[in-house]
């Protein structure tokens, strides 16, 4: 039996201290334009610390822009962003780790050395970073693959290394941008189930951007449906499925199908 992933070992998102705000991510009145193109208009939503939100909508609807704003890679033209108390772009950047759509592993680094990059960036020595990160490989079902180069790994494995790299950064907030968009549907379903369990064991504040309604509903309790450009919040849905159910049980349950229908209707 592989070692179980305890949240203590892997370091989960920080719980709010007494008196501290319990807000995970709060956006109010966010607007952003690029030249004449209005990418986002009047975006509002809020989630609690260590909970998850999914954002679905058509392509080109400004979802990635929203993610970059939350991450602190850019500031909105109007509106306020609060990520666990951080309001300036610079502060938000220290709170968030982003997992991009493509795995973006560095081809010249082994899986292990890709996973440790955030630690190296913080000045941790390479040997210490490796020692600290190695235990993740067994927990992620990647034991023995530490020294493989990305080109030698399957798409699903690369995506797991990419997620591991995001976790190793030890940030409170994870931003997942179409994390499984590049995978085939079977691997994708397996990875969704895997991520569901991984996040169950390691509570973090998670913002998930996807164009797959099913994925959003499955992985997060709150789902925001966005419109095409200019991106606006069309509808907010909540779905709470038993965490003990398997992916297949959830996806085929009547409640899931109903919420999914509402979401699809909202997308139009």
């Amino acid at each position, binding site marked *: 039996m592989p070692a179980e992933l305890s949240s203590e070992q892997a370091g989960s998102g920080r719980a709010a201290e007494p008196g501290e705000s319990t807000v995970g991510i709060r956006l109010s009145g966010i607007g952003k334009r690029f030249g004449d193109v209005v990418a986002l208009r009047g975006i509002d939503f809020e989630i609690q610390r260590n909970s998850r939100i999914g954002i679905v909508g058509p392509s080109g609807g400004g979802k990635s822009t929203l993610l970059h704003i939350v991450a602190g*890679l850019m500031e909105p033209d109007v509106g306020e962003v609060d990520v666990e108390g951080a309001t300036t772009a610079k502060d938000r950047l220290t709170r968030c*780790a982003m997992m991009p759509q493509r795995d973006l592993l560095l081809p010249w680094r082994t899986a292990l050395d890709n996973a440790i990059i955030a630690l190296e960036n913080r000045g941790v020595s390479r040997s210490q970073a490796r020692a600290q990160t190695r235990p993740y490989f067994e927990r992620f079902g990647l034991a023995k693959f530490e020294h493989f180069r990305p*080109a030698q790994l399957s798409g699903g*494995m690369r995506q797991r290394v990419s997620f591991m790299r995001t976790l190793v950064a030890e*940030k409170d907030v994870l931003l997942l941008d179409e994390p499984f968009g590049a995978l085939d549907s079977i691997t994708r379903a397996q990875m969704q189930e895997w991520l569901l369990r991984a996040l169950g064991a390691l509570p973090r504040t998670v913002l998930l951007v996807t164009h797959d309604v099913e994925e959003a509903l499955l992985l997060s309790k709150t789902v925001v449906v966005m419109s095409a450009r200019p991106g606006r919040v069309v509808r907010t849905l909540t779905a709470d499925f038993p965490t003990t159910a398997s992916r297949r049980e959830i996806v085929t349950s009547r409640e899931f199908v109903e919420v999914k229908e509402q979401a699809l209707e909202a997308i139009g």
Partner: protein
Amino acid sequence: MSTGAPLQTTERDEDLLVSAVPSAKGSRVRTFARVYAGALAFILALLFGWELAVRLGHVPDYLLPSPTAILADLKTDWVVLGPALWVTLREVMLGFVIAAVTGVGLAVLLHLNGPLRRAMYPILIGSQTIPIVVLAPILVILLGYGILPKLVIVALICFFPIVVNGLDGLRAVDDEFIAMMFTLNASRWAIFRRVEFPGALPSIFSGMRIAATFASIGAVFGEWAGSSAGLGYVMLEATPNLLTSRIFAAILLLTVISLVLFGLVSLLERIAVPWAPKRTTS
């Protein structure tokens, strides 16, 4: 399944693994033979035809010596050619190293400094409209008959493809990589060191390989403009005396210099960039 379940998927990892089958040494030799056998056969046929034409057509040696006559000359004239080879080899190698160091250095500097890049890049491209070899006489006047003007010419010729390829490689890094690195605690320097520079290495080396083929041209032009030693000087001396096979022997040695330099750059690339996809020649 409960949330506390181990994060082990049932995915058949081994099946999904795209294995990079390391080729055995024997098969590598075979692959090499398969790839280059055709080219080798063609060259041999060409040399054979040349030899035959010269002998059967009774072409005088001073017009076109046969391949065997050139080889024989290489041996008898080694007293002259050997030291000349050494002189030119030094000019080519040193000039190339100067170009590689300054070229990569300037590419990095221009990449990291936007205003400087915008100021320098047009000048850099524009400077290439000057046929650099014609600068050789001026450099001889300025720097004398020694090795210095040759180094400058070789370096100037090799410099451009290295800078341009290096700069392109550094700028080709995906913005998404950079955004991701910023969210993973990276400083600007960390991004350069861990993402941009290693990512640009294949491009830098491809610039160096192009430069390696130009280097000996620079050395020869430098020697023609004014020198007292080197393969170019030997050729210059041999011409009025109609020592045609000596000229051919010098050309052969220049080719060898270029091949050696090219081989060294490729070898260095394989050491520095072992992860690069293999270039297949077929």
